[in-house]
């Protein structure tokens, strides 16, 4: 792997940039691998990378039905944070943030992780109570999160409207300074390049059509558009399409897939210094390094795989954004798009073993998958390599839905009395 640096950039500039090697070779599938990862998003590529890098398994293929990073990795609003309430959540997301920090150097690929801070707005007494609970729990868990008064929030994010007469007044905010954003595509590309350099095959445009199991019930490999590929360990990391893949192995999952939209504005000079989230009015916003406001919308209400969202969702989202940031009303929407997110009943992921021997799953991240990318990748790799979950992902079993030990962050922020 050619090392990327200002120096190599300069050297290549002298050659008219004609000597750069491929970032990852386009592999043809071999007949079998030790491990197959289905889904070349950030999570799947991350898993392949860590399998090779940390767990010594390099005979790995990542199989993707489209192009790598073309699913939710490239369709989200890139928010990274870990100020979750429950120990289980705080641990898994903070593990991810630990890995985000230093990822550019580890991969030798600048993923532009920007610790610009994530500000979560409280608009009611109930929000305040709920955020305080988060902050206290985070403090005792060693997770960075602090309370800001409305004035402090405004100082941190000047475009914010904190007038007390607003319909949804800002009554304060929780700030995680260590949180922020990263450049979404580069995460997938960086993992792909680093994984490929360690010997991982990345096979694009190769849809999985079946999961083959032996008489003992264990997996034997996958049927694909390009033929059968054998493996005794298969990790599925396919976001919105997880149900479809699990069904190929005869498993039914507690998942539903919903359309989720996002949009960007035209680029303008810097105005938003941080990420702002408001769960009460469903508004999520930051400004990209190019100057575009990046805005996340809510999901449509029905199951869909169409990657096509509705106009009224965008209307509501922008009404919310302009309620909190009245100065943005003259900004212009440049592009909107839809993704498909898979949601579990407790809105926490399922990451671990499945009832089928040799089949591992990483799914159900809902609208929050991007922030977990390196963590999910590493934990999936660990689980596959050891055939047992890492303590961090041990609670994220499929079994929890049977016993009732759910990890329900959203319920914990229960709607007010």
């Amino acid at each position: 792997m050619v090392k990327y640096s200002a120096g190599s950039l300069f050297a290549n500039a002298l050659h008219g940039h004609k000597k750069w090697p491929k970032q990852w070779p386009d592999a043809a599938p071999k007949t079998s691998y030790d491990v197959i990862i289905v889904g070349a998003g950030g999570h799947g590529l991350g898993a392949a990378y860590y399998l090779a890098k940390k767990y010594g398994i390099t005979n790995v293929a990542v199989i993707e039905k489209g192009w790598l990073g073309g699913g939710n990795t490239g369709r989200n609003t890139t928010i990274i944070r870990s100020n979750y309430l429950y120990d289980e959540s705080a641990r898994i997301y903070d593990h991810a943030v630990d890995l985000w920090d230093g990822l550019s150097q580890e991969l030798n690929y600048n993923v532009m992780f920007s610790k610009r801070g994530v500000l979560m707005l409280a608009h009611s007494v109930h929000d305040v109570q709920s955020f305080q609970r988060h902050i206290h729990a985070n403090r005792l868990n060693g997770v960075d999160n602090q309370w800001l008064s409305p004035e402090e929030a405004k100082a941190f994010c000047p475009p914010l409207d904190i007038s007390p007469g607003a319909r949804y007044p800002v009554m304060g905010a929780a700030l995680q300074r260590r949180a922020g954003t990263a450049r979404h595509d580069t995460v997938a590309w960086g993992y792909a390049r680093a994984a490929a350099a360690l010997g991982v095959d990345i096979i694009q445009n190769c849809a999985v059509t079946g999961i083959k199991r032996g008489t003992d019930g264990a997996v034997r490999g996958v049927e694909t558009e390009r033929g059968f590929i054998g493996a005794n360990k298969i990790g599925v990391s396919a976001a919105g399409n997880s149900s479809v893949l699990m069904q190929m192995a005869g498993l039914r999952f507690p998942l539903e897939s919903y359309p989720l939209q996002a949009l960007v504005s035209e680029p303008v000079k810097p105005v938003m210094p941080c990420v702002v989230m408001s769960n009460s009015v469903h508004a999520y916003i930051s400004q990209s390094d190019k100057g575009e406001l990046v805005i996340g919308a809510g999901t449509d209400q029905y199951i869909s795989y169409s990657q096509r969202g509705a106009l009224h969702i965008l209307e509501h989202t922008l009404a919310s954004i302009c309620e909190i940031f009245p100065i943005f009303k003259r900004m212009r929407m440049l592009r909107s798009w839809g993704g498909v997110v898979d949601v579990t009943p407790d809105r926490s992921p399922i990451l671990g073993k499945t009832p089928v021997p040799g089949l591992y799953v990483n799914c159900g991240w809902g609208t929050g998958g991007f922030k977990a990318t390196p963590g999910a990748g590493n934990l999936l790799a660990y689980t596959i390599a050891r055939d047992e979950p890492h303590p961090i992902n041990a609670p994220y079993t499929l079994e929890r839905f049977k016993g009732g030990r759910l990890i329900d962050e959203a319920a914990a922020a229960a709607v007010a009395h």
Partner: protein
Amino acid sequence: MLLIKCPYCEEERPEIEFSYAGEAHIVRPTDPSKMDDTAWAEYLFIRDNTRGVHYERWYHIHGCARFFNAVRDTISDKFIMTYKMGLPRPADVEIAKVKE
């Protein structure tokens, strides 16, 4: 915004009059106490989440206030048919017929 034919109103109405109500034909067991944890979890949480022809419920909450069933293609988001609550799940043949 989808256009949804309410089988009670017998009219196509805009989606914002409706509320999605999850997968259809998941019948609540008559005696839940007789079920083991696995079967109960299956009833509570396990869903087909079909990519393709999906059976689902909608609630005409801002209309006639009736829940009803629908068959919809989740790839195109097109409704294939809607039918009243209590009617049996249409057979594949019927769906194929309507699709044509």
